[in-house]
C-alpha cells in the first residue's frame, strides 16, 4: 500500500504466515483433548490472577488510557523517536543497525556473532527473533543458539513452536516436559520426576553452564527509552539478567514500535504489563542497560531495529493501533477461540486475537487471508487490553480489505460475495425483502417436529451440530399488517 509521500513499505517475512487456513488448523487442534485440557486450566488460572491484581487498582482505567495515549503519540512521531534512540545509544557506546526485514536482521546478527568469534549464543525474550527465524538462520551459519527462558527451552528442546506469547509451552503439561528433558538433556538426572521444582532445577543446571561459557547474549526488548537510549527487559526467571550481564557482547533485536519517549512513560507500562501478563503486581526481574560501561558488564552492545512489515502497518490508519501492543498476552487468555484451539492454529509467532490482526498487518492481508475471520468478534480482548487496542474493529476492517482486494483482483464474485450482494440488493427494497421472506417460508417443508436437522451447503456447516428454526407461517410484518387492518374494523 502506498501512502501519501511514503515509499512503499515492504511486507514482513518469517514465521508470520499460516501454513494452512485457520479453520483447518483449528479442526486439528480441537481434536487434541490433551491440548484443550492444558489450555483450559492454564488460561483459567492466568485469567483469575489477572482479574485479582487488576481489581486492586482504583485507577486501572486511567492507566489504560495513559498507555494508549503514550503509544498513539509515539506512533505519530515514530521516526523522530527512533532517531533520538539511535543518537542516544550511539553516544553511550552502542551500535544501532536498521533491518528492513527478517533476512536483513538475521544477516546482521550472524555477522555480529561471527565478528565476536563465537559459535554459541544464549538468548532471552525471543519473540522478535522467533518472528524472523533467527535460530535457524544462525544454525545455517554454524552458530548454536540456546534459549534460556524455561518455556522457550522446553519448546526448543521439543523441536516445537511457541503457542503463547507469555507461556510459549502452554500446550505442554509437566509429564510431557519431563519426557522432553529426559530425551534431550544430556546432563539430566535419569531419575527426574515431573514435580515442577525438580523440572525447574534440571533446567537451571542445564542452563548454568551455558550462561558461564557464552560470549554473546541475544535478547529482545520490552521497551527502549528514546531520551537516554536505555533498553528494558522484564522477566520472571533471572535468565535475562544472566544473558544481559555475563557475555562480552549483547545483541538486542527489537521491533521498531517498542520505542517509548521517556522514563516517565516507562512508569505507566511497568504498572500495566506485569498485571496484564503474569497477573503479578510486579515482575521479579527488570533489567535496564544503557550503551556500555567500560570495565563493567558487556563491552559490546548492538541494537538491531526491525521493520519487517511494521512501517506498512503504521501506514494503515486503523491497523496502526495493533503496533501499540506490549505483548502481555491478556487477550489470548480471555479469548474463547484461543482457549479452544491454542496458538499453533494461528500459524504465526503471534497467536490469539492480537496475532489475528498483527500477522495480517505485517504480511499484508493476502499473506494471512483466514486470520481476520478467526474471531467471533465477542470483544473480550478489547476489554482486557492494557493499551486499549480495539481488536474487533481492526478485524472488521481487515475483513473489508480482504474482500476489497479480492474484488480488485477479480477473484470475486465467489459464492459468498454473490450471497452478500444479493442480500444487500434484497434488503435495500421493501418489496424485494418481502418476496425473499416468502421464499424463506418455503423452507418450512424442511421442518420435522418444529426443527430443521439438515440444510444444504454452506448452511450444512450450521446443521452439523445445531438444529435450524423452521420459518414461521407468518412474518412479523405480515402479522403487523393484519393486526392493524383488523383494528380499523377490517376482517379479522
Amino acid at each position: 500500500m502506498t501512502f501519501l509521500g511514503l515509499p512503499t513499505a515492504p511486507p514482513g517475512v518469517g514465521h508470520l504466515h499460516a501454513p494452512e487456513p485457520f479453520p483447518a488448523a483449528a479442526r486439528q487442534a480441537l481434536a487434541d483433548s490433551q491440548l484443550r485440557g492444558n489450555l483450559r486450566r492454564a488460561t483459567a488460572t492466568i485469567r483469575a490472577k489477572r482479574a485479582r491484581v487488576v481489581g486492586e487498582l482504583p485507577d486501572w482505567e486511567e492507566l489504560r488510557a495513559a498507555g494508549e495515549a503514550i503509544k498513539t503519540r509515539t506512533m505519530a512521531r515514530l521516526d523522530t523517536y527512533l532517531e533520538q534512540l539511535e543518537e542516544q545509544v550511539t553516544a553511550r557506546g552502542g551500535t544501532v543497525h536498521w533491518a528492513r526485514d527478517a533476512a536483513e536482521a538475521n544477516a546482521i546478527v550472524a555477522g555480529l556473532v561471527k565478528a565476536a568469534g563465537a559459535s554459541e549464543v544464549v538468548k532471552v525474550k525471543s519473540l522478535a527473533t522467533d518472528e524472523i527465524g533467527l535460530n535457524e538462520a544462525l544454525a545455517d551459519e554454524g552458530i548454536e543458539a540456546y534459549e534460556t527462558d524455561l518455556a522457550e527451552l522446553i519448546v526448543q528442546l521439543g523441536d516445537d513452536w511457541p503457542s503463547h506469547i507469555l507461556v510459549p509451552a502452554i500446550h505442554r503439561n509437566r509429564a510431557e516436559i519431563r519426557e522432553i528433558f529426559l530425551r534431550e538433556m544430556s546432563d539430566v538426572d535419569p531419575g527426574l520426576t515431573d514435580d515442577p521444582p525438580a523440572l525447574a532445577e534440571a533446567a537451571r543446571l542445564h542452563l548454568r553452564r551455558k550462561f558461564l561459557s557464552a560470549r554473546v547474549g541475544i535478547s529482545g526488548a520490552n521497551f527502549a527509552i528514546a531520551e537516554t537510549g536505555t533498553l528494558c527487559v522484564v522477566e520472571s526467571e533471572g535468565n535475562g539478567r544472566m544473558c544481559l550481564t555475563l557475555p562480552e557482547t549483547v545483541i538486542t533485536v527489537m521491533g521498531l514500535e517498542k520505542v517509548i519517549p521517556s522514563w516517565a512513560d516507562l512508569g505507566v507500562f511497568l504498572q500495566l504489563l506485569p498485571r496484564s501478563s503474569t497477573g503479578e503486581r510486579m515482575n521479579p526481574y527488570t533489567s535496564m542497560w544503557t550503551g556500555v560501561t567500560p570495565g563493567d558488564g558487556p563491552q559490546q552492545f548492538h541494537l538491531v531495529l526491525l521493520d519487517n512489515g511494521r512501517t506498512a502497518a503504521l501506514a494503515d490508519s486503523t491497523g496502526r493501533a495493533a503496533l501499540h501492543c506490549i505483548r502481555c498476552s491478556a487477550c489470548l487468555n480471555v479469548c474463547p477461540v484461543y482457549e479452544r484451539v491454542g496458538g499453533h492454529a494461528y500459524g504465526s509467532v503471534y497467536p490469539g486475537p492480537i496475532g489475528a490482526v498483527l500477522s495480517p498487518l505485517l504480511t499484508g492481508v493476502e499473506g494471512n487471508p483466514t486470520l481476520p475471520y478467526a474471531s467471533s468478534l465477542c470483544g473480550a480482548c478489547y476489554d482486557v487490553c492494557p493499551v486499549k487496542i480495539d481488536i474487533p474493529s481492526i478485524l472488521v476492517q481487515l475483513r473489508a480489505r480482504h474482500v476489497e482486494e479480492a474484488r480488485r483482483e477479480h477473484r470475486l464474485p465467489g459464492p459468498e460475495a454473490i450471497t452478500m450482494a444479493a442480500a444487500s440488493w434484497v434488503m435495500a427494497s421493501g418489496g424485494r425483502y418481502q418476496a425473499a421472506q416468502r421464499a424463506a417460508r418455503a423452507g418450512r417443508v424442511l421442518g420435522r417436529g418444529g426443527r430443521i436437522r439438515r440444510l444444504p451447503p454452506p448452511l450444512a456447516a450450521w446443521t452439523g451440530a445445531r438444529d435450524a428454526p423452521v420459518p414461521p407461517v407468518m412474518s412479523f410484518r405480515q402479522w403487523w399488517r393484519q393486526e392493524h387492518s383488523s383494528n380499523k374494523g377490517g376482517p379479522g
Partner: protein
Amino acid sequence: MRIALFVTCLADTLFPDVGKATVTLLERLGHEVEFPAAQTCCGQMHVNTGYQRDALPLVRRYVEVFERGYDAIVMPSGSCAGSVRHQHAMVARRSGDELLARRAEAVAARSYELSELLTDVLKVEDVGAWYPHRVTYHPTCHSLRVLRVGDRPLRLLRRVAGLELVELPDADVCCGFGGTFAVKNADTSTAMLADKMRNVLDTRAEVCTAGDSSCLMHIGGGLSRLRTGIRTVHLAEILASTRETSR
C-alpha cells in the same frame, strides 16, 4: 412517547413472536409503537463479513426510515443496536459520505436495545410481567461489550413475578455464534457452543434467555439437537408475559 420498532430482519423473518412481544410489552406500558414498513436490515452481517460496500445501502435505508418522527427507536437485539451505534457512521465515513455519517450518528443516538429503552429512557424495571419458570440469562457479547448494558436485563428479570433466576456459570463467555463465524469456523464455533450448553445444563433451568435472537438461535439449535428439553426464549417474550396471556 412515539417509539418506532426496528424488529430486525432475523426476528421479522424467523422469530416474529419476539417482535410481537416487544409491541405487546411497550403498549402495555402505555406507549405508542409504530412499525415503519420500509425497514429491512441493519447491515451488520455485511460489515462483519467484510462487505462494507454492500452494507452502505442498508445503512442509508435505516437512517432514512428512522431519522424523522420518532422519539426513540427500539430493537430486540443488542447486536443490531451495537451495529447501529458503532458501525453505521463508520461505514458511511469509510465510503466518503460524511453527511450520511452525521445523520447516522444522530439516529443512532436515539436507537436503543430493549433493556436500555426500558431502564434508561422509560425508567421502568418492574414491567408487570409474570413468568413462573426457572430461567438462566446469557448476556450476549455485543449487548455486554459493545452496548455495555451491564445488569439492565437482570434488573428487569428480577422483577418478573414467579420467575426463578439462576446464575449461568461463565455467563460472559461467547456462545460461539459470531454471525458468519458459525459457518466459516464451524468446528471452533461448535466447541464454544458445547461449553455454553454444558453451563446452561448445569443450571437446571427450564429456559435460557438473552436479548438477541441470533445467539438464542445458536444456543437453542444446539440444545434442540441434543434433545435437552431446555427452551430458549427471548427477553422480550418473558417481559411481555402476564398471568392473563401466559398459557
